[in-house]
């Protein structure tokens, strides 16, 4: 559903929808899933996607670009990253934003421009700064972290990103339809399937193409494999960072089993080419079902053994428990989503709105908000996804591979899709002009909102806890940098 409101009514329309439920409407409080803008001549077109009770509403307005846009972050802090992005992408003034810093240095100027980043500074006789990055010690993507510390204690962490900016959105808008799916598969390689599925849903909406249940199931199977594989990778990383070698090696090899299963299904350990708009992009017959089944047997047997070992270890409990806490209230305020959100008590998982595919699924919520809670959420989600996959195998579902052409896109329309990737919500919005050509493509990785959660969770903690806090969030650099 799309609602256009005049610029004068924009603020009220948006804040009303995110305000707590008030009679007589009885609507549950809404949540802003994304907010972004684009220039159209002298105008700024702003779009917000709001979720209320599982229903998405697209709220839109136009305003003269020269007037600028008045920030709503002070009232709705969860909008902080969206408004920074809006400013950076459209060049329109966003007045009154408390933290209007470059998000990813899209404007050109390269690394020279990045050196002008206005770091927050803390002053005092014994205050010192620790700068890390952009290149880190491991085989990992780049980003800059600067800690303001008093001794070992972190007063503030600021995270500067943008090193990975490749111009994904510009390329998606460039009109080469052959490249759409391959490009979205590289927005964040660890979320290949989530992005490819979100893209497929958005373009199918625009083209008015309905797909079979098997098509959707084929995507969900790969997505749950992606989730299990990446959760295992996160657990292996966490185990490494606390020096738990058995956890590191065991979670690592279990992930190998999972991603090799994806490869058996679609030829790629990352699910590349496993999702295409219109039809199932890989065949799921007796061979593939058998491969999945034997992987599930192995995982069902071995995952609980290492989980039990890991969680019952006193040193693991001490190292992760009470470290890097984000309270439920803070999580709600800043709009934390996905694994990190659920580990801080946020009852959010987009899969619950797909009861056709995920009957009986409930978000795995933990109240603690610490590194241990984020660990436990991952473990429980692995367990749930394996159970879900087992049910697919037992249902003896199957499908052949097929190719579908998508046809023309509806003119002056917007396709919006939200898929719960392993980190959280992956959002794709595609908009067409009067001729049906793409005028805008907005993608969003959950990392965009969640990086602030990481920055806040280390405040007051020891700087030596940063690596495990970072790993427990396991956010994407390229997904945020685009």
């Amino acid at each position, binding site marked *: 559903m799309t609602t256009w409101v005049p610029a004068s009514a924009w603020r009220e329309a948006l804040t009303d929808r995110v305000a707590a439920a008030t009679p007589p409407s009885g609507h549950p409080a809404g949540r802003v899933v994304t907010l972004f803008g684009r220039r159209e001549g002298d105008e700024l077109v702003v779009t917000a996607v709001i979720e209320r009770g599982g229903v998405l509403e697209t709220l839109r307005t136009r305003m003269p670009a020269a007037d600028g846009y008045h920030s709503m972050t002070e009232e709705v802090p969860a909008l902080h990253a969206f408004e920074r992005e809006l400013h950076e992408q459209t060049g329109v003034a966003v007045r009154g934003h408390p933290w209007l810093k470059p998000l990813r240095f899209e404007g*050109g100027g*390269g*690394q020279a421009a990045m050196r002008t980043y206005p770091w927050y500074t803390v002053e005092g006789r014994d205050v010192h700064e620790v700068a890390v990055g952009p290149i880190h010690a491991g085989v*990992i993507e*780049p980003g800059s972290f600067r800690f303001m510390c008093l001794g070992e204690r972190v007063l503030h962490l600021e995270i500067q990103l943008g090193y990975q900016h490749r111009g994904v959105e510009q390329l998606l808008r460039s009109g080469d339809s052959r*490249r759409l799916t391959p490009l979205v598969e*590289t927005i964040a390689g*660890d979320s290949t399937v989530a992005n490819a599925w979100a893209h497929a849903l958005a373009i199918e909406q625009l083209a008015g193409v309905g797909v079979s249940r098997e098509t959707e199931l084929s995507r969900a199977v790969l997505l749950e494999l992606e989730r299990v594989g990446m959760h295992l990778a996160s657990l292996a990383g966490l185990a490494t960072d606390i020096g738990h070698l058995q956890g590191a090696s065991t979670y690592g090899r279990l992930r190998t089993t999972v991603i090799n299963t994806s490869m058996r299904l679609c030829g790629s350990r990352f699910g590349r080419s496993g999702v295409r708009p219109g039809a199932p992009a890989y065949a799921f017959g007796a061979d593939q079902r058998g491969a999945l089944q034997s992987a599930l047997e192995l995982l069902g047997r071995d995952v609980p053994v290492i989980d039990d070992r890991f969680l019952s270890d006193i040193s693991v409990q001490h190292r992760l428990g009470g470290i890097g806490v984000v309270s439920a209230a803070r999580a709600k305020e800043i709009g934390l989503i996905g694994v990190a959100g659920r580990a801080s008590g946020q009852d959010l998982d987009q899969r619950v709105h797909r009861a056709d595919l995920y009957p009986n699924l409930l978000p795995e919520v933990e109240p603690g908000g610490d590194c241990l809670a984020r660990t436990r959420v991952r473990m429980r989600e692995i367990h749930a996804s394996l159970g879900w996959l087992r049910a697919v195998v037992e249902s003896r579902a199957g499908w052949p591979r097929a190719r579908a052409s998508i046809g023309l896109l509806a003119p002056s329309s917007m396709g919006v899709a939200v898929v719960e990737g392993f980190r959280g919500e992956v959002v794709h919005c595609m908009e067409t002009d009067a001729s049906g050509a793409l005028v805008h493509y907005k993608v969003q990785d959950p990392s965009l909102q969640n990086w602030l959660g990481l920055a806040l969770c280390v405040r007051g903690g020891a700087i030596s806890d940063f690596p495990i806090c970072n790993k427990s969030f396991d956010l994407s650099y390229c997904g945020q940098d685009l």
Partner: protein
Amino acid sequence: MLRSLRVRLAQGRQFVPDLRTARPAGFRGRPEISASPCAAGCTVCREECPTDAIRIDPVAIDLGRCTFCGLCEEICPSGRFTFTPDPRLAARTPEGLIVREGVQPAVARDPDLARIFGRSLKLRQVSSGGCNACELELNALANVNFDVQRYGIEWVASPRHADGLVLTGPLTANMRDAVRLAWDAMPDPRFVVSVGACAISGGLYRGSPTLDRTFLGEARPVLLVPGCPPHPLTFVHAILDLLGVR
């Protein structure tokens, strides 16, 4: 203690015994181009390939651009393309990555590199716009399955300790100085390896104004490892062939 034993028992032996002969089941790897003739005037593969990796007359795939999406195999009316699970895809030069009928990519041993690094090689990985797929696969080289340390090959944290710089991603302008700093910090003798379609050719990002690939002109890679992302075994074959290890 008992829990630890249970994990050990479940773990068993996980390493791939012979990385040289392993063929990953289901992997879309080295393409073979058949001798059957094309349908008259047909150019469908070249037109549809999302990375413009295909040339015609004679039919050839540039593995430096190819993302191994499999589309050409699917749509060619004459069945000229077959993707095999063979992970040996690398070459030393861009020309070496052009696969034609009867032509396969290969990595020739470098006698100097073999002499110096054949028994111990320390690599520093730098991602410059990589999507974390290449990075995860390179990380996987050090897991208990691939265990590339068995050949004396290791990832190191500091470029000061590194012999080789392994680049992933299309090389963004926003990382240009950092890549150069890492390279400048590496002692001689040293070399560059490009991993993945993005690093080799820009891949899907080729021509994007957000890139700055001048570094590759100055420090020419000695090894190009194709894939999107490359399978860990593709990297293993490439580096062992370069060093002349078995």
